[in-house]
């Protein structure tokens, strides 16, 4: 089989498209067929592994119905005994890489996930699909050249994003900015700084990173903070590029923007906030980002297409099951309740679901509750004539606040910060919200009505900086304070609870988590806010 480069040189662009992006032409029945077949392979691999015995102590069924009937839903706790030890002997396939999370979720130092050779190939292929979507404006029409300058501003191995360039290596020759061996030794901030510095000299064709970084750079340009000193420090080629950018901006009669300096061919961003930032990124960089959805346990799971609307799940990434929100709520209220799941062809537009995944190609996770929530926009994309469900990724986990794909604040983080802030407070809840320009954490907290709210907010903010290094980086790198305090009078929660009990929602109210409670509860609490309009 010819490589992508050879195919492109032969003018077989359509073949490249079919291989990487052709899945969008599948019907939902064909999608399910692919899913079921790959699941059958996985069940065969699992039944020969020691893992199944450790976890279930029963034979692995060989068909989908029995699989869903007899294999229980799992969480990381079910895997920690062997994944935590990186015990490869019990796995369904030999891992090529071990990938981990930053370990901020739950009680684990780190969550480890093994990736077999087949998994690496598939997830690299899926990432390549996203690259092609980011480069095209209509079906089959994209331009991809060898040695495209790729600013790859994501975490290095052993994080999932670090694995992808290695999977891409035998697919297409990109020139990474900075080169991978150098980048892997750098911090996040250094990698971005060096990447853009090199980009000034060599140009940037592709970007994969956090959308807030692009916004931050755009803002820096628009505030004219990219000034003389940067210009003087840069080398000749960079100066030339900047001068050319300045000339273009001058002709257009506005301030210098990144799109004057670089003409990015494709932008790929990960994280929930991409949708929030996409218009501003287009303004600063001249191109909207393609949002992809992925994670340690699921690899590259879904991508937007060239209309930048809904995400489409890859049929060969994982076996997808969905817990409807009402089933999820029942399982929260009653931990003994086993929620039912639906498959991709059974999901309904407008509804929210928790994702449950089973890895393919020898992965370890089986009916694994990811904790991620998606919302179904529609069952097909009418504009692009795609007959697969269009989804949006809403939350990484209901009990985690993910801000700009930078930090994941848990209930424990907030408790520690409140403890360290040394303030007197009552009950509290926190949720992710959006300020004018940025995503933030809104903290609804009962405090003494006579307190100085701003000083309390400052104390909590400083405490959060000290307990969560990512929160600290968020402010330093992106440059905004991601906390909004909503002070509530003492007894406010009690009132709301009583009111809800009266309305027959008492049980639900008691089961409400402190992180990301339902909008209805927030709305009721907000009515008691001590903050006046304009504060």
């Amino acid at each position: 089989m010819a490589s992508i480069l050879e195919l492109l040189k032969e003018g077989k662009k359509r073949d490249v498209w079919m291989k990487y992006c052709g899945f969008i032409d599948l019907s939902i029945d064909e999608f399910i067929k692919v899913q079921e077949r790959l699941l059958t392979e996985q069940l065969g691999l699992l039944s020969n592994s020691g893992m199944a015995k450790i976890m279930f102590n029963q034979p692995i069924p060989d068909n989908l119905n029995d699989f869903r009937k007899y294999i229980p839903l799992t969480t990381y706790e079910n895997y920690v005994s062997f994944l935590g030890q990186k015990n490869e002997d019990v796995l369904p396939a030999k891992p090529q890489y071990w990938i981990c999370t930053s370990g901020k979720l739950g009680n684990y130092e780190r969550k480890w996930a093994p990736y077999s050779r087949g998994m690496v190939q598939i997830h690299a292929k899926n990432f390549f699909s996203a690259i092609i979507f980011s480069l095209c404006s209509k079906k089959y029409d994209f331009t991809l050249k060898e040695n495209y300058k790729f600013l790859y501003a994501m975490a290095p191995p052993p994080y999932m994003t670090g694995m992808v360039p290695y999977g891409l290596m035998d697919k297409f020759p990109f020139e990474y900015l900075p080169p991978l061996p150098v980048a892997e030794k750098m911090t996040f901030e250094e990698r971005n700084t060096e990447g853009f510095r090199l980009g000034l000299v060599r140009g940037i064709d592709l970007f994969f990173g956090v959308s807030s970084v692009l916004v931050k750079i755009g803002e820096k340009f628009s505030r004219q903070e990219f000034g003389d000193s940067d210009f003087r420090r840069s080398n000749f080629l960079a100066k030339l590029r900047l001068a050319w950018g300045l000339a273009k901006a001058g002709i257009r009669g506005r301030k210098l923007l990144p799109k004057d300096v670089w003409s990015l061919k494709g932008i790929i961003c990960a994280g929930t906030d991409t949708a929030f930032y996409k218009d501003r990124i287009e303004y600063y960089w001249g191109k909207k980002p393609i949002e992809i959805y992925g994670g340690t346990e699921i690899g590259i799971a879904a991508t937007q297409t060239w209309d930048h609307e809904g995400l489409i799940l890859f049929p060969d990434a994982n076996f997808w099951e969905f817990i409807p929100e009402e089933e999820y709520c029942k399982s929260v209220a009653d931990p003994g309740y086993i929620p039912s799941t639906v498959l991709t062809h059974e999901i309904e537009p407008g509804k929210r679901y928790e994702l449950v995944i089973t890895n393919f190609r020898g992965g370890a996770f089986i009916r694994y509750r990811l904790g991620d929530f998606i919302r179904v926009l529609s069952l097909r994309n009418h504009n692009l004539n795609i007959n697969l469900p269009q989804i949006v990724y809403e939350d990484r986990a209901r009990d985690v606040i993910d801000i700009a794909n930078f930090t994941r604040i848990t209930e424990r983080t907030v408790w520690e910060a409140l403890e360290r802030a040394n303030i007197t407070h009552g009950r509290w809840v926190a949720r992710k919200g959006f300020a004018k320009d940025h995503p933030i954490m809104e903290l609804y907290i009962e405090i003494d009505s006579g307190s100085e709210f701003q000083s309390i907010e400052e104390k909590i903010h400083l405490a959060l900086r000290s307990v969560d290094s990512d929160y600290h980086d968020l402010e330093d790198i992106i440059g905004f304070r991601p906390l909004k305090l909503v002070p509530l009078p003492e007894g406010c929660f009690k009132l709301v609870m009583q009111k809800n009990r009266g309305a027959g929602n008492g049980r639900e109210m008691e089961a409400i988590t402190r992180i990301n409670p339902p909008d209805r509860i927030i709305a009721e609490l907000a009515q008691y806010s001590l903050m006046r309009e304009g504060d």
Partner: protein
Amino acid sequence: MSTDINISISLSMAIPLTAFFFYCVLFLLALKSPRSKVARIFIGYLVVMIIWSFGSFAMRADIFPGTLVWNRIMIFGMMGVPFLFFHFSQEILGRAKLIIWRRIGYVFWGVLFIGNLLGMIVADAYMSQGTFVYILGPLAVPFGIIGGGYTLASAIFLINEAFRNPPSFWSNRLVYPSIGAAVITLGSLLNFIPRIGQYPIDIAANTVNACLLYYAIYRYHFLNITITIRKGLVYSVLTALLTGSYLLIVFVAEHLIREQVGYSTILFALPVAVIIALFFEPAKKYLQLLIDKFFFGQQFGFRETLKEFSHIITAILDLDKLANSTLELLTKALQTSSCYLFLPDRDGNFYIHSAYGAKMEDLSAIRMDKTSPIVCCLSQKSESILTIEEIETRPDFQGLWQSERDELEEMKAELLVGIRMHKELLGILVLSEKTSGDPYSDDDRELLLTLSNEAAVAINNARAYTEARTQAVRDELTKLFNYRFFHEFLDKEIARCKRADLPCSVIFMDLDLFKVYNDLYGHLVGDEALNTIAKAINESTRATDVAARYGGDEFAIILPATNPLEAVSVAERIRNRVQNNFRGAGYDSKLLTVSLGVASYPKHAGNKQQLLYCADQALYQAKRLGRNKVCLYTPAANTKNISNVVTENTLEAETDFLRKQIEDAYLSTVYTLAAVINARDNYTYTHSKMVTAYALALAQALKLSEERKEMVRLASMLHDIGKIGIPEYILNKPGPLTPSEREIVQRHSNIAEAIINQMPYLRRVAPIILHHHESFDGSGYPNGIKGKNIPIESRILTIADVYHALTSDRPYRKAMAMEEAISQLQLLSGKKFDPDLVPVFIRLLKNEMIEFQYFLKTVVR
């Protein structure tokens, strides 16, 4: 002289005109190709070639605005060739680092363009008496060096890539363009020798280059450009050329004769024309042959292949031979490196039946599951051939398993062809890449389709033949292989394993109590059980495993390429399945268990005999450890080996084994006797079972010891065995018996005692059976003993026997209701029956009816 000059002029114009024509056609073809950067540069290259060729023609034809102007235009085209060809080669090879040389080349072109306009390359050019004369300028030599250098460098790069090892995607595709580039370089450099340069040698080289490009396009679809050449068109062109040449020669001959001889008549011209025609006919045939060989040589080969294949399929019926011959033929005809034939197994999954050009041993594990997208796709009428590119590219193949992808890679699969008959997919041909590295042409595919259609019929016939032949090696009852085939196959398999250094395992399996089962339920039911076991074996083994009925209730299974531990897991699977199948189908699953012994080559044995011995020993060990077990052969299991190392545990195991053996024999006897009763009289058999149930219930209510209860059970089961010596007409007599008949009947207790006493392990129940017709008051037979002298077990048996007889239909009377029978028991209590036992029995019947019924059911079952 003037004729020479004219011919020379015509030739020097004809060559550039031909080259111009060739490049124009190439240009039009390239315009149709998919647009890529490489294709665009190639088009540019063709444009400068066209300019060069046409400039040369116009210059030599001295048409307006004159030779010098056309020379300048020609030089412009000539100058562009090295730089565009360099750019083209760099783009194909992806040499981004040489971009600077590419740019420098274009700068040179610009400089030379100006130099050309100023007459610094060719100072002057004109036609003098039909000869092209030119004077080189000061930049001519630098241009020759730079241009030659660029073209030569490109040619070297391309040749280097073309002969790279391992071959790249561009290998082969680049051979002809790079040779063409070398030819152009040579042709252009010859222009520096004015004597040669006056002739269009450079353009002739360009024409050669054009031909080479045509061939690269025709043969390798260079730059994805395709040419379809119709045979008829080629013949038409040939005929036109030959006719023209013929007329020209006749005309020239007639002209020369007229000039030399001085006159001409039609009578003279005619024989000349005929003589020339006689020469032309063979020449035409020869040329046609050359064309056939050049353009259609492959089809010739294909026709031969098809002929040979037709011969094979009519001559061979054996599937193995047919498959091997077909693959050999295909491999040779299409020059593939290897070729595989997949056939479906009994489950519909496809396995490699034959391979050519590859070792079967390395690939025997390769399978195509019936749910594979490849199988599904090739099963459809619309899709007969799949390329590896389609499999890699089409989204509906995303469901392909990683193992399936790896297997395709292992086979270096390029083409997959479905062999279909009606709607059934009979087989799949997998062809790996060609030895030349060329892609498969449309003609190749055409041939494959024709062959696969013919192969479908042949395979279908061969399959039917093989099926018939298979009958001869199958066991008639179970349809498993027979003993002879098992041994033949094992011989071959061990030889194969020796060659390929692979393991091979054998399982010996034996039904634990099949003899008893057979005796108890009869041979028909026994045969059913054997079939159920054969089914369980088939369900638990692969299509490549060979399961045979080794003897009556012995089975043996050969597991190719299977190591000991895998074989044990297969054996365990069979054992479980046998158990589940029997349990599910309502058989007497206690009796129908299997013991299995496993041994492997080469771990346990170095040859067939040793392997069978080891498997047998392992089976023996499984039996010895208590039946319904799987044992892997270990040297310790060999009795010869353990004789010197007797430990307490092994002694215990030995004793246990012996005890089990005795029990087996004992149990076997009881069941056999019961079967004898059953065979003679079904009432007696049912009666014995029911009496056993009642007697056991009573014995349990009386809290007898386990040992005595066992004696009650055995005695009850066998109490009427003596009826074997009573004539059937007396037993089934509808009316009352005569005194002499009664006397005969009463002998059955003594007969029973005599039979039972022959069997040492049953001897202790003989007295119970002997006295079961004694009465409590001493009025019974055969000895007339009374009261507690009658063994308690006999007294129990008497009550049970009479109660069941009263409540059963007999030839001489109808069955009594329970209440009536109880009254009879009460009436005879103290007379015929032990008065202490009757109330207990009645209580059992009345007060504990539910539990009693349940107990009865359990015992009877």
